[in-house]
C-alpha cells in the first residue's frame, strides 16, 4: 500500500534536519557575546564609507545559460519515466525518445552555432 503516510519518515527526517540547523543557529546567536555600536555595525571597507548597492547587474551571458538550463532541465525530467519503463517499452519507446532527443539536438546545434554558450567573445 502506497499512501502519503509512507512518506512520514521523510517528513520526520526533514523536520529533524531543519530543527537541528535552526536550533544551532538560534542557540549560537543567543549564547555568543554581542557588542553593538554604530562603528561596529557598519561594513568594513578599509576606512572608506560604503557606497552604493551591494547587488550589481551582471552579464547577459549568465542569463542565457540559465534559460538554456531550464529548457534542458525539463528535457531531463522527461527521461525519468522512460528510464523506469526502459525494458517494457522496447523499440517503440526508444523511437519516441529518439525523436524527442533529436529535436532537442537540433535546438542545441542552433544554440551552439549562434554562440549563445561561448563565454569569452
Amino acid at each position, binding site marked *: *500500500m*502506497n*499512501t*502519503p*503516510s509512507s*512518506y512520514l519518515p521523510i517528513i520526520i527526517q526533514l523536520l529533524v534536519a531543519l530543527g537541528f540547523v535552526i536550533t544551532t543557529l538560534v542557540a549560537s546567536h543567543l549564547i555568543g557575546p554581542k557588542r553593538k555600536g554604530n562603528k561596529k555595525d557598519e561594513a568594513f571597507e578599509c576606512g572608506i564609507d560604503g557606497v552604493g*548597492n551591494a*547587488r*550589481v*547587474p*551582471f552579464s*547577459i551571458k*549568465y*542569463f*542565457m545559460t*540559465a*534559460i*538554456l*538550463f*531550464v*529548457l534542458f*532541465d*525539463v*528535457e531531463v*525530467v*522527461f527521461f*525519468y*519515466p*522512460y528510464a*523506469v*519503463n526502459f525494458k*517494457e*517499452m522496447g523499440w*517503440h*519507446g526508444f523511437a*519516441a525518445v529518439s*525523436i*524527442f*532527443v*533529436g*529535436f*532537442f539536438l*537540433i*535546438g*542545441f546545434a*542552433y*544554440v551552439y552555432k*549562434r*554562440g*549563445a554558450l561561448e563565454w569569452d567573445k
Partner: protein
Amino acid sequence: MQYIFYTLAFFAILCALFVVFEKNPVHSVLYLILTFFSIAGIYVLLNAQFLFIVQLIVYSGAIMVLFLFVLMLLNLNKDTEPQKSVIFKTAGAIAAGSFLLVLVAVLKDTQQSTELSAMTDIGLVKQLGKTLFTKFVVPFEVASILFLAAMVGSVLLGKKELY
C-alpha cells in the same frame, strides 16, 4: 492527516498573498518559491509523487531561479516600482474577489463524482511513464517541438549582436 493538508493550504494562500503585496520583487520571488513548496506538499497528499518531484525540480529549482536571475540582471531589487492609483487598486481587488465568488458559487453546484479510488500507485513514475508513452506519445513529441521553438526564440531575443 487533514491537518497537514489544511496547514499546507493555509501556508500556500498566505505566501501567495505575500507575493502580490510584497514591495520588494526579490521577496516576492522567495515567497513564490515557498508557495510552490507547499503546493508540492499537497501533491504528496494527493498521491502524485512524480509531480511532487517535478514540481520541486522544474518550478522551485529552475523556473524560480530564472526569475531571480532576471531580477538580479535588471537590478530591480530596490523598490522602484511605480504604484497604480488607489481607485485602480480597489477596482482590481474587487474584480478578483468577485471572480473568486463566481468560481466558488459555480463549483458548489456542480456534481462531483465522489467514488473513491483505491488505486494509490497512479502517481508513481512507472505508471505515469506507461501512460505517457502509450496514450500521450504525440503530445510528448509536440512538447519537444515547443522546446525547439522556445530555445530558438530565447537565443534570438537574448543575443546582443543582432541589434
